[in-house]
């Protein structure tokens, strides 16, 4: 039976909680309610209120209590209901989780997996739509992952829970029930995904698109459209991991295609595309046959609610196709 991205997350949590009694969940509305989007549905019934903790409305303690519990040997999986609400936990994430291993010379660690629901395009407005992945990708000490497929949603979550590092697991709300990406998945421990490398989702030879999250769907559509239009062969790379970045897969691709288009839902300045652009310019300058192009949201604070404003804000297939035209015609 093919399952959704949301089903995959639920299955990963269920399997890991059955496997390891140290795994527990904590977050807002995750227990009785089963999560704002249903990601933790049924888990309270199976595992009880001690392992599926409906927390107070306080993101700081959700994360920092998880850090302490992880120090003490457990495997917490805290949840931030919307990435827009993550700011009260910024000290816990950036100053404590990211730095604990380093500041203790490796003697104290906090392997938490912080699930964060993010992303726009659902009419959620300024505070239910943000893509603030870059804040965390900028923090050495954190692993930041953003699965774009159903298989990765499950395999990367399971692997993150077993990883001996703090992992921020960004799950895109628009992918939760996106029909086109449903997959048949194996149950059990067969599905542990790699947490260190990009994936080439569509091989090509004329240009490279680098993207992640829901934007992968748009990038693949844009690549298909160009192939139909003029036979252009576009390689599409799914970043999967935002920190530490897998530079080599990107550089190797650009060394073959000579052209790079980066698509990000986040706004432009100092986004993940900025880092990738700089890396390619530094390490593969001679390989470039055209300027690097970024397709991103504009530099405004967050996604406005009104549909025309949101549509202006969000990258879409037409914008990506237009960028590819410019790259290919240079």
């Amino acid at each position, binding site marked *: 039976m093919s399952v959704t991205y949301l089903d995959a997350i639920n299955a990963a949590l269920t399997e890991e909680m059955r496997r390891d009694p140290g795994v*527990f969940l904590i977050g807002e509305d995750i227990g009785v309610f089963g999560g704002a989007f249903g990601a933790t549905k049924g888990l309270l019934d199976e595992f009880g209120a*001690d*392992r599926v903790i409906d*927390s*107070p409305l*306080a993101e*700081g*303690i959700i994360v*920092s*209590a*998880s*850090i*302490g*519990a*992880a*120090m*003490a*040997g*457990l495997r*917490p999986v805290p949840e931030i209901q919307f990435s827009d609400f993550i700011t*009260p936990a910024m*000290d*816990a994430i950036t*100053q*404590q989780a990211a*730095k*604990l*291993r*380093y*500041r*203790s*010379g*490796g*003697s*104290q*660690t906090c392997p938490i997996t912080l699930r964060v629901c993010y992303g726009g395009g659902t009419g959620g407005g300024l505070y239910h739509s943000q893509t603030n992945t870059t804040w965390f990708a900028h923090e*050495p*000490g954190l*692993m930041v992952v953003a699965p774009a497929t159903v298989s990765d949603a499950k395999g990367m979550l399971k692997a993150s829970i077993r*990883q*001996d*590092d703090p992992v921020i697991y960004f799950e895109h709300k628009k992918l939760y029930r996106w029909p086109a990406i449903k997959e048949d998945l194996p149950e059990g421990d067969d599905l542990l995904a790699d947490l260190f490398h990009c994936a080439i989702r569509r091989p090509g030879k004329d240009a490279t698109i680098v993207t992640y999250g829901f934007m992968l769907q748009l990038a693949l559509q844009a690549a298909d459209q160009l192939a139909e239009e003029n036979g252009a062969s576009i390689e599409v790379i799914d970043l999967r991991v935002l920190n*530490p970045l897998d*530079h*080599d897969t990107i*550089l*190797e691709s*650009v*060394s073959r295609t000579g052209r790079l288009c980066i698509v990000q839902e986040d706004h432009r300045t100092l986004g993940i595309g900025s880092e990738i652009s700089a890396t390619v310019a*530094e*390490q*593969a*300058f*001679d*390989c470039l046959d055209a300027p690097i192009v970024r397709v991103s949201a504009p530099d405004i604070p967050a996604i406005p609610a009104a549909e025309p404003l949101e549509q202006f804000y969000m990258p879409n297939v037409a914008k990506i196709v237009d960028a590819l035209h410019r790259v290919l015609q240079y």
Partner: protein
Amino acid sequence: MATKVKEPVAAAASTNHGSANSDNALIGNDKLKQLYSTMLKCRLLEERARILKKQARFKGNYYAAVGQEATAVGSTVDLRPEDTIAPSHRDFIANFIKGVPLTAMFSQLYGRSTSPDKGRSAPAHCGYAPLNIITPSSTIAAQLNIGTGVALANQMKKNDNVVVAFSGEGSTSLGFWHEALNFAGVRNLPIVYICQNNLWAESVSVKLQTKVEDISLKAIGYGFPGITVDGNDVVAVYRVAQEAIERARSGGGPTLIEAKTYRWYGHSEIDPAKYRTAEEVEEWKAKDPIAAMERYLSVKKLFTSDWKQQITDEFAKELDAAVEVAEKAPQPEPIECLDYLYSFDIRERELNRKIYSPQF
């Protein structure tokens, strides 16, 4: 329901030395002497650290708790190795009380490769994993939240280990502080919060931090007991802390203890503390917890100046030896800057970036 007890009823307050209770059944003479000798050693340790700092023998800064020793000693002297301490920047001595070797502590001050954190944190930010002392950060009150998480884990594991989490009165203004105590109350966690109210958060008076007279009152808002104790009375602190620790161990939940005390010196070794009056400092130095305990022990005929001198001389030798070990210990190799970031190594990634431009 929260209770507020301004003076610990049962405590034989050492500051009331004239009326010291000589048939104190609950605290044995050996324990009383241990409380004193531990405070004295903490004082000697910190005065040594301050001298070394002034001599520029180590870099960075130091945050002495001189004058506040009774709060740390009274609350942690009887902790088990499995119990956790969540220290602030001014709780360096908590490491010593819990049993961290002096060589490790001085290696920490000197930032040597032999320090518990391999030369990473600030000198006073000493943690020690083998004895469950969380390595502090500088973001105030963060240790309370992490300590609260350790308490959550202890509760989930159904053991009877407790957490003692320290903070100053300034930290109570932060949201973190509230989130930690609120969560501990909701989950009935095995943790004791000790607020060392020393009246000054760096240069800011407690009057600018809170309108309440006694910080222990805040516990009412979290549904667990709060108590204010004379933080310069080690016996009083010990009694109150033992009761709170026992309550936490036996599933009775958290306690907030406000220990009213005073730091003799500035916020750090570069702070002359001119924001305070000389009269205020002298008033508090007259309430020195160590001198008070000497008077208390003298009444009980448990103190002699020879004994004090013996402790002082023997501990000075231990300090000398620890300083020598630290000074002779190797510095970290520069390349070690890249270590202990993740569970995996990043040296190769940082040092050998693959270049795809043949001309470069």
